[in-house]
């Protein structure tokens, strides 16, 4: 497979780190100056294929990261909530989001729901679309969501001035499926050989997709997969862990590097879940919006921001841990994130009865002091590795 894109590992990682460091989102301004259209997408899941089909750049707003000194953003929110809305509004106040022709906010939680109101009060002239994702898993849920996808498509067409055909939608779904397939393969390689796909490096390359056109990100992932398969890396004496709870506000890269330095190799995670969301490709045969609607209602992962009527989210976590041969589970969630944190008792109970050790961490996207994380992750890795010898 000939890679047309940057071939060496260092070039890929350097490109990804440059995009990670672009806290003021200059990439979006440059894309706009080049005549392109931009639609901002808030976490966790939005069918960004619709934006890609209209030829616009789906910019995944995953928050400010450690480089952003948020001051104005704190003015609109009380202190006891996660950091993501503060950095998004701070970016807005600084003009870093002027490039957006539209902002799409999914019904992930009450914080993002109210963010649409804050956005409207601060910037009445900038369109924002609230996507009320269905909590039902039946025909009525599909129908309600299908009507919203049609309205979203119309709104995206309006702000971009593009006419979107069924073929455009299918092509976009095809590219998204490719990305899902590549991320799946990288996931399997990491399970087989954790040293070949370090989680912090993989996170950087996946996060680059937040600001890249999907096609370009797919090429980057192809090259990265190829390089990971062919670059020998020393095997480390590490504990294999599964990370769960970081589907929305992302931990800073320093958090993930601290886990690795403390001896934890992350073999499976839900970081940037929204960029892939479905485990299997979205159907390409029937009408695209129908396909997206059915896929969401029937194939969505057991994420914390979706109502789990059947109550099988805990069992799914145990299965995922076993499938990735993880020795332990790291429940890491943003501080004050009701969605992720309220699942903890049920998840802990399931892990305990399955005999899988677990540890609970909290983070904020701008935290820079990882002393406590190092101690907890280090003790967890010690507990797994030292007792491996004695078992």
């Amino acid at each position, binding site marked *: 497979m000939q890679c047309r894109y940057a071939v060496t590992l260092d070039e890929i990682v350097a490109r990804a780190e440059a995009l990670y460091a672009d806290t003021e989102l200059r990439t979006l301004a440059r894309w706009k100056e080049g005549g392109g259209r931009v639609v901002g997408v808030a976490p966790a899941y939005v069918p960004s294929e619709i934006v890609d089909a209209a030829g616009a750049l789906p910019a995944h707003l995953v928050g400010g990261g450690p480089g952003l*000194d*948020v*001051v*104005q*953003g*704190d*003015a609109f929110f009380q202190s006891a909530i996660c950091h993501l809305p503060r950095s998004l509004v701070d970016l807005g106040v600084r003009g870093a989001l002027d490039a957006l022709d539209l902002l799409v906010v999914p019904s992930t939680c009450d914080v993002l729901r109210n963010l649409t109101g804050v956005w409207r009060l601060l910037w009445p002239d900038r369109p924002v679309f609230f996507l009320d994702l269905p909590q039902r898993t039946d025909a009525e849920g599909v129908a309600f969501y299908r009507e919203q996808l049609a309205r979203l498509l119309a709104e995206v067409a309006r702000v971009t001035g593009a006419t979107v055909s069924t073929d455009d939608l299918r092509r976009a779904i095809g590219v998204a499926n490719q990305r899902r397939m590549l991320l799946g393969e990288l996931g399997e390689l990491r399970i087989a050989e954790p040293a070949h796909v370090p989680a912090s490096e993989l996170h950087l390359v996946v996060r680059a997709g937040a600001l890249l056109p999907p096609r370009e990100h797919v090429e980057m992932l192809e090259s990265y997969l190829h390089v990971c398969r062919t670059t020998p890396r020393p095997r480390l004496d590490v504990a294999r862990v599964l990370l769960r709870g970081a589907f929305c506000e992302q931990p800073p890269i320093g958090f993930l590097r601290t886990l690795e330095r403390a001896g934890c190799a992350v073999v499976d995670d839900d970081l940037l879940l929204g960029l892939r969301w479905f485990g299997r490709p979205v159907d390409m045969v029937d009408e695209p919006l129908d396909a997206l609607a059915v896929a969401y209602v029937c194939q969505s992962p057991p994420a914390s921001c979706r109502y789990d009527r059947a109550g099988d989210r805990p069992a799914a976590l145990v299965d995922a841990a076993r499938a990735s041969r993880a020795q332990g589970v790291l429940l890491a969630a943003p501080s004050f994130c009701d969605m992720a944190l309220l699942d903890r008792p049920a998840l802990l109970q399931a892990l305990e009865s399955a005999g899988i050790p677990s540890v609970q961490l909290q983070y904020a996207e*701008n*935290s*820079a*002091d990882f*002393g406590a994380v190092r101690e907890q992750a280090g003790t967890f890795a010690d507990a797994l590795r030292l007792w491996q010898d004695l078992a």
Partner: protein
Amino acid sequence: MRAFLGVDLGSTTTKAVLLDEKGGILGRGLTNTRANFETACAVARAEALADARFGLLAEPARSGARRAYHRAERGRRLEHLRARTLLLADDDARLQVAASRLFEALAKLASAEDGAVSFRDAVAEAAATAAEAVATAAGVPYERLMSALERALVADEADPTALDPDAVLDEIGVPAGERVPVDVAAQSGTGYGRHRLPFAPGEIRSEILCHGLGASHAFPGTRTVLDIGGQDTKAIQLDERGLVTSFQMNDRCAAGCGRYLGYVAEELGVGLPDLAPLALSAHCPSRINSTCTVFAGAEIRERLALGERREDVVAGLHRAIVLRALGLLARAGGVHSPLTFSGGVARNEAVVRSLRDELSRHYRDVAVNVSTDSIFNGAVGAALFALRETAAC
């Protein structure tokens, strides 16, 4: 001369101010609130009265009297402190030797002109450098000498006796005819401990209003007030008439307030006023965002151990204080020019500089007003209330 008294009983320091009928400051008094509230109020009030009496004299008597009063007061308190420390150390001869040698080193304090820092902080700072050597020379554990001094300081702070200004004026020979009596026509109290002041309920005013009034008096046209005190921070918005429209307070967690700077100074073994020059000499401040006051010492030790330069760490700590204050200002509705920066921490030049830098980055051209009387801002506001009340009725 009719004067109006304002007392701001802060959590860290108690400030007293006497204003004349036109609102000009006649006299100032500053002491640590560590003494109990009634004593703190009495000592600050006495100091302000003496300062006002001397202020009304013509030069050279005015500065001569102030210097003499200050030296006499310091000498008196040092002597009492020395006696108390020796009394507390009477069970151990070597500790007695160490204590008396320590007070020889502290003697220079009597003539020092550091009016900005209270007596307790001046003694603590001088002892921090001298005590180690004196203790080891006398073969006594450093901690035991310091604890004897601390216990003596606690007793000293509870002693309300103040020097009689007339005794000082007699001593430097100012004829009775030239002395102008000062009588307090009305008084008003505010601050953290205002409900425990020996004042009538009608004479008690909220901190927010006093700081608002004091700021717009010192700098007419002030629209935003930032007050960083010993353990709380206030952000106040004023309208064009100087009336309070909204405010935000951060009084649940003392992180990033004056006491934090106190811990930093203690950890580095320097005095509070020395922090600013150290921070200003840095060229790349470290990135610090946990400003828990109690952890300040540990944070510094960790950063220094990692090889960061002292001035960069201290500069980083100052910037962390400003970022925390900016967050509060943003929650209070942002910053509207001109901003008046008040409270004890406003005396720290490095915090003022860092505040100006950060404001220019986040808000366009904001004028920042800081006065040497910034720590008295609350007390001035309270005195203005007393002045307006008497003028009104």
